[in-house]
């Protein structure tokens, strides 16, 4: 924790305007707080503390309460993710088919043993709750694209598709 006071001044103004528009259309802002946070995460990519404070003020809620909600639900992220978010399903069906070996494989190939985001900011790795595609287990989701029946020897090829990609 830094001692500096949180400030909402550095948040992107265009993005905030988009969020403001959404919030203004809501009848009961406090009850819709989870929806506001979803929208905020969609627009900003994640929910930094400054944004949580901004939303709390908009919804007339204590910032501590908003932070309590953000930290409670696993869908919300308080840190930015990489350009390519690698989500490895750790639902039971994927687990019994070796999803933990797949995670280790991604971590070792990308040299990210204990890092969430790679040094160049291109990749981030996280495990996710059952994505409900158990017929394809083990499943890996990269941004929106789903890879099914992934084996440890498929990992290098999958990473290569993104390493080679522009931007």
């Amino acid at each position: 924790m830094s001692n500096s006071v949180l400030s909402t001044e550095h948040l992107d103004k265009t993005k905030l305007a988009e969020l403001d528009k959404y919030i203004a259309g809501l009848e009961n802002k406090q009850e819709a707080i989870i929806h506001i946070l979803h929208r905020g995460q969609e627009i900003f990519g994640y929910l930094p503390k400054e944004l949580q404070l901004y939303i709390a003020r908009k919804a007339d809620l204590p910032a501590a309460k908003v932070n309590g909600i953000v930290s409670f639900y696993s869908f919300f992220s308080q840190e930015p993710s990489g350009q390519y978010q690698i989500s490895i399903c750790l639902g039971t069906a994927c687990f019994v088919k070796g999803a933990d070996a797949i995670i280790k494989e991604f971590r070792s190939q990308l040299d990210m043993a204990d890092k969430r985001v790679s040094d160049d900011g291109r990749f981030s790795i996280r495990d996710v709750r059952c994505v409900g595609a158990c017929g394809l287990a083990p499943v890996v989701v990269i941004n929106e694209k789903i890879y099914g029946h992934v084996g440890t020897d498929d990992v290098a090829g999958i990473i290569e598709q993104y390493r080679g990609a522009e931007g």
Partner: protein
Amino acid sequence: MRIDSLQSLAELRESAQQYVHLRRDDVKEHPADAKIKHQLMVCGGTGCVASRSDEIIEAIHKALEEHQVDDVEVIKTGCFGFCGQGPIIKVQPDDLFYVRVQPEDVSELIESHVKRGEALERLLYVDPRNQKVVHNHHEMDFYEKQERAALRKCGLIDPMNIKESIAFDGFHALGKVLTDMTPQDVIDIIKTSGLRGRGGGGFPTGLKWEFTRKSVGDKKYVICNADEGDPGAFMDRSILEGDSFSVVEAMAICGYAVGSDHGIVYIRAEYPPAIQRLTAAMDQAREYGFLGENIFNSGFNFDIEIRLGAGAFVCGEETALISSVEGGRGEPTRKPPFPAESGYNGKPTVVNNVETLANIPDIILNGGEWFASMGTEKSKGTKVFALAGKVNNIGLVEVPMGTTLREIIFDIGGGIPGGKKFKAVQTGGPSGGVITDRDLDTPIDYESLKSIGSMMGSGGMIVMDEDNDMVEIAKFYLEFTTDESCGKCTPCRIGTKRVKELLEQLINLEGDEETLEKLDTLCNNIRSTALCALGQTAPNPVLSTMKYFPEEYMRYARREVKKTYSIDPEKCIGCTRCARVCPVSCIAGEVKKPHVIDEELCISCGACFDACKFDAVLRP
């Protein structure tokens, strides 16, 4: 177009039926001069879309144009349930089922099946047990023993077109209820049917509705619990993706029965296609007057809104769900008061699971006795199970209650792949337990599963084979519950963490027999003292694996477990195959000389074991 009477609904059904006659089991003859000769039903469930079913649909349209075919329609349906074989195309009226179709196959399929009238053999389903090609959808083992009630219209209709739902009797139950029945009549039918909550609780649905009806309140709510959190269960998602209409209709029926005009669907944000189809179903229902004011000119008003969850397993518990809908952390509260008395915003609220609701319209149309004629003495009707893990046929299976696990895993599921031995099946997810071959012949119902140390849960069914380590499985579930504990009560917040640590001690070969005793005591304490069902059931995976596989725990306690793979130098011929597949490059050796695994680096993934053709790699 607003439908305001049973009469106009019946007329609409008749006109809509001409779009679906190729798919109706009761229509055998199709007019020779019909404009459409074939309908290609392409699965648009999450599993199949992930394996490119959208590209397949595009490819079909292109192929139809190329081959100048104009008597074929393409329909994107919901899930057929046979997810392990996706992407799936079903051709009607031929009742033919193509599996694992790729966009590249489409042109040949159209050429062969549609133009020449010959089935494309290589894409038909092959029975894994006798290698025979199966032509007819209804003759497949996977479907033969199934009895589809809640899933009746999934895979049968276009989930984005309300007319197709109406053609198969959609919204007729709502019409019947609002024009011919009193709320008490509705409750009586549901009570007669014996329907119990499909989310796992198993509470009689009719009673829940009756309690809510009798509670005093100026406003009441109907909440649909679509926060499917059990890892490995996906029936609610499939129902919403394949037939949201039935859920919308059932919520309105429930609203009429309990005296509510306000419905809320609480759904996981992780399910975008389900949300999209549910939204479309609600919009179309409004357009036809099945939601909104004065439905069927009866004076009854009802509408539904969607609330998004944000990933919290505990929100499947109804009081936690209500806290989340109210815009807070999803923490459970003590019951009583039950939501039926004081739920959302302190008002009487009925909370029903998706699958429970999906059964309602057909119960109203066919009568409570129809539903009660299926199942066991105390558990009526059918149940959808999500069969996954180490089993040949992965997918959604709907069977009458009382079917045995052996029938589900070996007849419908086609047994264990790779000639491996069945070890256990986990039902009830992180709240349930394992069932071994000893109990495979138990007829499944709410009570019987409890009596053998597991539970029904929402219907997840994960099959494990001889390779799965049961202590690791227990740890996996405890990691899940530790992560998902909301933190409100101490036994769950701290207790599950300590259980997880004890399991880690065992697995890291740092425990002993005393660790096992501590585990047992702690698990039983949590079970009897936690606040809500999540905490009370969290120790179940540990207790049940300890009960059925005590020797595996004992091996860890006595530190007899070998942690890594190794190579038998006698058998190894030095083909280098294992070294090439090893993801962590921990296998060394020269060509044609025995190889060695570095135990420090080995991650026990088993890749070398699978790769070796000489049985030279030894399992831990």
